[in-house]
């Protein structure tokens, strides 16, 4: 089983089971991880599922591209090098144990 480690804005953290093929956003929503809003439900239309991935994910997947890259420019919390939209990152087996940080706010 793949487990993701979410770090929340208040410093607490939460381990949630993840299914390969689902997105980070879907995983967060279905496990009730607070701070992921996903207003547009993964249509790349809102930038409210902004997360910071860990170095391992960033180096293996590369950075955001195209529309995701554009959308990140206007996320509520300013983007950083590890910023991604959760709806665009598909879970893979090797992500087991990865740390995903939830920004202070999405709106």
């Amino acid at each position: 089983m793949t487990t993701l480690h979410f770090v929340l804005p208040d410093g607490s953290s939460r381990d949630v089971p993840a299914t390969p093929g689902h997105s980070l956003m879907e995983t967060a929503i279905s496990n009730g991880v607070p701070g992921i809003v996903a207003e547009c439900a993964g249509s790349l239309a809102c930038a409210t599922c902004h997360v910071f991935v860990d170095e391992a994910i960033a180096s293996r997947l590369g950075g955001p591209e195209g529309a995701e890259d554009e959308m990140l420019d206007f996320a509520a919390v300013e983007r950083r090098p590890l910023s991604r939209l959760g709806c665009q990152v598909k879970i893979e087996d090797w992500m087991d144990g990865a740390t995903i940080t939830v920004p202070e706010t999405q709106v």
Partner: protein
Amino acid sequence: MSDFSVPGGQPAACPFHAAGANHEPFRHEGMYEFFASVRDDVPVFYSPQIGYWVVTRREDVLATLRDHESFSAEIATQPITPWPQKVLDYLKERNFTNEAVQVACDPPRHTRIRMIASRFLNVRRFSFYEDALRKLVRVYIDRITGLDEVDLVDAIFYEFPAQVVFLLLGETDFDPRKIKKWGDLRLNMVWGKPSESELELAVHDLADFWDYACELVEARKVAPGDDYPSFLLARRDGDDAVLTENEIKSLVFGLLIAGHETTTNAAGNLFLELMKRPEEWAKIVRRPELVANAVEEGLRYASSVVAWRRTAKVDVTIAGQDIPKGDRILVALASANHDGACFDDPETFDVERRNPREHLAFGSGIHTCLGAPLARLELKVLLEELSARFPDMALMPGQEIDWTKTISFRGPSQLRVRLRG
């Protein structure tokens, strides 16, 4: 619009048929009670008065909004009461070339335009306006300070969102009441039940409204500023493949409606529900940190957009009901937002509700309202400022609430309060 037969041949006594027969799409009194009475048994029914399938449950509304492959949005801004040829001819004569650019267009056109518009209309950029918004609200509040009684809609909610739109457009010298009048008129022409003579009168103003949007864009071509039309023109940079000039004019025309009508109504709805419940208002006064959640609960409990439209692009099935390609669908956002499957005790207005944000007042999917963060900001500032300045504000007793009369938009046309309790 009266000759729609009920498909399927259901017997008269079945709940499906009864729901269709009892559905009064233009009537706001009793709307929530009606949906509460049908939602459990009837997830979808046919409304013969308008010729639309009506979807009542949140789950199905959400699925419909998110499935832009099966459902087209092109119908979203088409007149629900068709305009007579005379009106269409007049608009042509007046060069009314407004085209669908956002809410009523499908991908890939929608994707191209949204990616550009959203680079200006987004939460980050809106947040830069917070101080200006607060200043504006305070001007309106100062004007009513000292009065005993006031109609909040007339005194603040009607104009304030239009002033915010002017901020985005870089307009400094225009009468907000004129924009509001134009907006009201267009809403009635598209979503209301205007008579032919009303339409013939209104269409002149509609054409004037379009001319105003065009002139505004033309002016920014000559003297660009730090505003939405100037931004769009800069992105276009003369390239029709990016955005045409007519698309820019249509975007500005769109913002001149979408940017304020629903926020005026949302503010009226929120404050009406709070004023009806002094204990909830007192919570906001005591604990201003509840404001953001209260705003969401207002949007959930009394959305200013109660229904939205789609057309089936293919044969679809919603909640077991087969709907053929080409049929029209009305997603009842008001009903979805009171669905007990998502919201505990859905008919209770509770500023401390756990999950009000799961409402669908701003839609979902690729057409999620671009102005949602701005509307939220405006409502937040209004609630913070008014509750701080008038903590004892109370509803004037005995007033009858008069609602807007369109199929999609809902808000009180007045809200009289005592400012000092």
